[in-house]
């Protein structure tokens, strides 16, 4: 031993049990901080992947540029690629068709495939020559096309002929709307549509080089090329995940994320601070002895700080390792469950921000947290070591109130509230759990608003009547029902714009038929009345809507092809997934009643959910249905929705789980530390004659004060924080008024209460098993 500081590793080895709690505290704090930042990093990476897959890898789009501006833009050093793009019949309302199917015609540069990885070539090559085009896979299959074939697009008053140079995958929008796509180079596009299309229709999608400060670059470009701000818009989702968005709302989200990150860092600091304070308090006698042997106050301070750093070296690597493994686990889940969307996510990647913040906050916190204990240790009087009072006489400032309460309860309360500083520190660390939980809870509300989830009734494919009439025969429904690859099939018949008299007023309604499945899903939205009578065809459901109201039991008079008929309102629905349009009511009835009322026997739409979602099965259903109906394929769209929701939910609930873990660990640690610090006192009390049960009550009373104080403080501080975060993240975008997060509060309060109960079991067991003689050193 060359230096008194060499005592640290020796002491640590000998007092492994005493320092274990502090080391674990640092390990877990580093783990939580690093896991949260690592998860946030991976979350951003996953969202970036999704944004690129669904919206494209472009950063900014410039519209209405002339050729010179486009060339100058492409020549700029910060611009990686410029892709020109224009589309005709994008909304399927211009009458361009191939074989009677609506067709979208697009013209773009070859770089389009780089910025839209979802649209990739399955065969052939990008059309280099005039009148060459790529066509979608669905067109290839249904028109029986090969590379080199000619395809004729029926245009309003004319037709366009292209030679097929290759095939591309259908987009989810095309599959859902049952439309084709024909894609050509920009020269061909201009030669076809120069007259009908303005230069303004061309948009220049720009991808910037990595690490470019995009907002500044866009400002420079606009200034130097004289482009108005209105001509520029950004890929908000991608820019948001890159932290480059100039969008006001995204900036608000950055602020929310910054506040949450700061709160996580502070909560980690508080955990470590509490643990180190307690550790030093337990070793007062040792520091007194050091002073007794001639150590200066400065040397004791240095000893405590060096010891803190020594713990950092021991505790930070395992903390980081746990967090890396956790983040790996989450990423693997993403990759395994939705491989198409997250194949580019690193399976065993290490989040550098997570590791960086874990180390930084770990070291800074331990150093900052060791300041106070170091000062306290250096202030220990040498007399403390020799007087025999070390660890027995705490500096109590006032006596406990033993008048009204049992002495053990009074002492428990006093242990918690006797020192204001200790009370504030512990209740604040408890409160932080609530504040964090409420803060991260905003993520759930955000997710519910931002992502449209799949409903139980969301179909994989739909067979739709061409003219929205009830033209799909019952026989097709019966035939498809026999198909074992189909999980569920449910049809609806529609009668649009029927004149009706509701509550004596003339209105117009849309009449829809439901069957057993749809009635089952609608149960949850039933506000009044009963579903049974509607199922039996003895009444109808009316969907709540401004201006359309009727009481349950009242009659609605409908005018259909078969004449005027009265139906009884048996129930009111708060919501229906089908909107009838402004001012038009929605009336839902059974299939039998619909047929009696309208005289129609067919369906307008058949929704199908599949067991086997393969293309072969879908093709089989398509050929069984024939060419007389529109065929909407939502599988790709559903996969996108599921991937987006899953990736978001995984991280939002992951954050909440980590925050709940912080709460649980914090409570268990605080109670264990508090009991450890008073163990000698408890030993003396046991010698005097206090029972284990009485000591248990004492610990319970102390815990109760921390819990109640923490809950109160957490709610008082957490609610305003929740209010502001909600306003910035939710109200600013969707206009929803703030509502108190009752469920979040109940969840975290339950978690904390259970954690507090669990937290007492360990210390109480230690008290029960303690040797009085060894504890008080007799």
């Amino acid at each position, binding site marked *: 031993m060359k230096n008194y500081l060499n005592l640290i590793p020796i002491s640590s080895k000998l007092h492994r049990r005493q320092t274990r709690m502090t080391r674990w505290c640092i390990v877990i704090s580093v783990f939580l901080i690093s896991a949260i930042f690592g998860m946030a990093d991976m979350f951003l990476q996953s969202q970036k992947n999704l944004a690129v897959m669904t919206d494209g890898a472009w950063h900014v789009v410039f519209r209405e540029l002339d050729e010179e501006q486009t060339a100058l833009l492409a020549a700029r050093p910060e611009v990686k690629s410029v892709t020109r793009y224009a589309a005709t019949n994008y909304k399927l309302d211009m009458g361009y068709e191939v074989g009677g199917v609506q067709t979208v015609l697009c013209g773009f540069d070859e770089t389009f495939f780089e910025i839209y990885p979802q649209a990739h070539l399955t065969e052939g090559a990008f059309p280099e020559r005039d009148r060459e085009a790529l066509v979608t896979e669905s067109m290839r299959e249904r028109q029986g096309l090969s590379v080199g074939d000619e395809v004729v697009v029926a245009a309003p008053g004319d037709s366009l002929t292209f030679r097929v140079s290759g095939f591309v995958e259908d987009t989810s929008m095309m599959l859902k709307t049952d439309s084709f796509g024909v894609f050509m180079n920009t020269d061909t596009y201009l030669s076809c549509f120069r007259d009908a299309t303005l230069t303004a229709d061309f948009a220049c999608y720009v991808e910037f080089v990595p690490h470019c400060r995009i907002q500044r670059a866009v400002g420079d470009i606009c200034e130097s090329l004289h482009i108005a701000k209105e001509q520029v818009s950004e890929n908000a989702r991608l820019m948001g995940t890159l932290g480059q968005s100039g969008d006001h709302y995204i900036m608000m989200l950055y602020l929310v994320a910054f506040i949450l990150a700061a709160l996580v860092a502070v909560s980690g600091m508080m955990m470590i601070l509490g643990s180190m304070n307690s550790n030093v308090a337990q070793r007062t006698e040792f520091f007194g002895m050091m002073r007794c042997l001639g150590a200066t106050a400065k040397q004791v301070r240095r000893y405590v700080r060096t010891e803190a750093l020594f713990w950092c070296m021991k505790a930070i690597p395992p903390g980081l390792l746990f967090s890396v493994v956790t983040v790996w686990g989450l990423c693997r889940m993403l990759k395994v469950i939705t491989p198409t969307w997250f194949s580019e996510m690193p399976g065993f990647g290490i989040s550098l921000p997570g590791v960086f913040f874990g180390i930084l906050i770990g070291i800074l916190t331990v150093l900052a947290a060791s300041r106070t204990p170091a000062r306290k240790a250096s202030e220990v009087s040498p007399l403390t070591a020799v007087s025999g009072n070390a660890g027995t*006489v705490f500096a109590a400032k006032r006596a406990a109130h033993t008048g009204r309460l*049992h002495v053990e309860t009074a002492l428990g309360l006093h242990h918690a509230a006797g020192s204001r500083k200790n009370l504030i520190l512990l209740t604040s660390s408890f409160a932080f759990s609530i504040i964090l939980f409420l803060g991260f809870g905003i993520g759930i509300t955000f997710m519910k608003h931002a992502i449209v989830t799949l409903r139980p009734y969301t179909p994989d494919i739909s067979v739709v009547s061409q003219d929205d009439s009830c033209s799909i025969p019952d026989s097709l429904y019966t035939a498809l029902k026999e198909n074992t690859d189909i999980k569920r099939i449910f049809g609806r018949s529609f009668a649009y714009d029927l004149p009706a008299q509701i509550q004596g007023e003339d209105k117009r309604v849309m009449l829809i038929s439901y069957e057993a499945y749809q009635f089952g899903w609608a149960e949850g939205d039933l506000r009044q009345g009963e579903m049974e009578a509607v199922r039996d065809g003895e009444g109808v459901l009316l969907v709540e809507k401004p201006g359309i109201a009727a009481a349950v039991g009242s009659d609605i008079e409908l005018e259909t092809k078969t004449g005027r008929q009265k139906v009884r309102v048996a129930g009111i629905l708060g919501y229906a997934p089908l909107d009838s349009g402004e001012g038009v009511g929605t009336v839902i009835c059974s299939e039998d009643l619909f047929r009696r009322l309208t005289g129609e026997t067919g369906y307008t739409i058949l929704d199908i959910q599949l067991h086997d979602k393969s293309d072969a099965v879908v093709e089989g259903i398509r050929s069984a249905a024939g060419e007389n109906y529109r065929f909407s394929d939502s599988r790709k769209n559903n996969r996108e929705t599921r991937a987006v929701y899953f990736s978001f939910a995984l991280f939002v609930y992951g954050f909440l789980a980590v925050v709940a873990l912080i709460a649980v660990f914090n409570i268990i640690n605080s109670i264990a530390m508090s009991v450890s610090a008073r163990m000698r006192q408890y030993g003396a009390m046991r*010698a005097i004659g206090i029972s*284990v049960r*009485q000591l248990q009550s004492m610990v319970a009373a102390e815990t109760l004060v921390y819990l109640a104080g923490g809950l109160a403080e957490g709610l008082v501080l957490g609610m305003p924080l929740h209010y502001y975060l909600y306003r910035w993240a939710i109200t600013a975008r969707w206009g929803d008024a703030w509502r108190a997060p009752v469920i979040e509060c109940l969840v975290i309060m339950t978690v904390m209460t259970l954690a507090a109960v669990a937290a007492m079991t360990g210390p109480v067991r230690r008290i029960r098993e303690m040797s009085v*003689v060894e504890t008080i*050193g007799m």
Partner: protein
Amino acid sequence: MEIVEVQDLCKTYGMGEAKVEALKHVSFTLQKGEFAAVIGESGSGKSTLLNCIGALDEPTGGQIMIDGRNLFAMREEERTIFRRRNIGFIFQSFHLIPELNVEQNIIFPLLLDYKKPDSRQVEEVLEVLGLQERRRHLPGQLSGGQQQRVAIGRALITKPKLILADEPTGNLDRKNSREVMELLRKASGQYQQTILMITHNPNLITSVDRVMQVADGILSDLGGNVNEKLS
């Protein structure tokens, strides 16, 4: 009347080569009101003896009867309650509760029994201890001698049949030591309480009725008239 009856008491620590026999077949009795001292060198086993009699440590063999009750035939909870009602402890390091004032510390064993303290009795103890003026003081505001007096008051308040004192003057100066011994003498004489005290200080055994010596775990009774010889 026998208050303490120790029969064939053995206490062993460790196993194999590390085995230490702290007490070897110790037997003795103490009568009501008797003030006995146990002397011996450090590590001789005297503290172990006191801890076993006080039910703080469990013997390896033998039995201890206090007021006719076998201590280690009781269950833990019962033994704890028996201890707080029948055995008073005085420690070298006082072990006062820092959050309770002088009066609260003294009545602490009664509070643990959920009994309302008799104010006359409390006054009497405070007067005997000379702590009336300091009844609202916290332990941290008292001198060592005063703290030990509070500890004695805490041991006396339940009027226990037996008081065990482990080096009660070990942390005190000569004047305070004398005062503490006077108090213990008074407790033994005036209140007929049996006292067993461990000490290193040969001067203290002049005040006791009987002296026992522990050496290598073996107890020998030096009798009651050794005062002059020892001093």
